[in-house]
């Protein structure tokens, strides 16, 4: 029994370490996106080949998917609950922003909806809900 518990502990990374890694990755990703928004360029070499761009996309997807899997493996039900609600509210925020912005655009009151801003808005909603449920 004790050996089984020790084996479990050996394979489990401390949750705080997993969470801090996620927060650092999310912050770096957000800063890159905000920089891209305001600088008008993506934070990567501008003369990349098509293969390079595809490799970058595949790498980014692998890193994010790998991290999410690692995170879900190490998290607990309280955190998972916060994550599920944050994702639900992120989708609601995304839908509300998109619909309202589109209507305003059709009515001539706003420019064409910007996918990056909508994504950032939903990410902020997700982060706010997650932090509220996790730490209040």
């Amino acid at each position, binding site marked *: 029994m004790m050996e089984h518990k020790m084996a*479990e502990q050996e394979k489990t990374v401390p*949750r705080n370490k997993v969470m801090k890694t996620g927060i650092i990755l999310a912050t770096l990703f957000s800063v890159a996106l905000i920089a891209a928004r305001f600088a008008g360029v993506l934070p990567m070499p501008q003369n990349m080949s098509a293969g390079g761009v595809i490799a970058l996309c595949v790498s980014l997807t692998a890193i994010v998917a790998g991290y999410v899997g690692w995170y879900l493996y190490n998290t*607990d*039900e*309280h*955190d998972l*609950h916060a994550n599920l609600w944050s994702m639900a509210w992120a989708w609601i925020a995304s839908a509300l922003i998109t619909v309202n912005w589109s209507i305003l655009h059709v009515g001539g009151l706003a420019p064409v909806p910007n996918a990056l801003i909508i994504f950032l808005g939903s990410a902020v909603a997700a982060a706010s809900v997650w932090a509220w*449920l*996790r*730490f*209040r």
Partner: protein
Amino acid sequence: MKNRLRVLRAERSWSQAELGDRLDVSRQAINAIETGKYDPSLPLAFKMARLFETTIEAIFDDGAQNG
């Protein structure tokens, strides 16, 4: 949902972090359960009952009247 988790933990002089380690959940999860902000899953409730050598009903009270 009301519960006696804080009392049971205090009787054993365990910190929230220590109880979290024993139940394999975070300290924040224990705090959220103790303050009634989060209701644990059935598997976690059973785990708590086994750890404190009691029943789930002795730890949690949903406020409903029996009978």
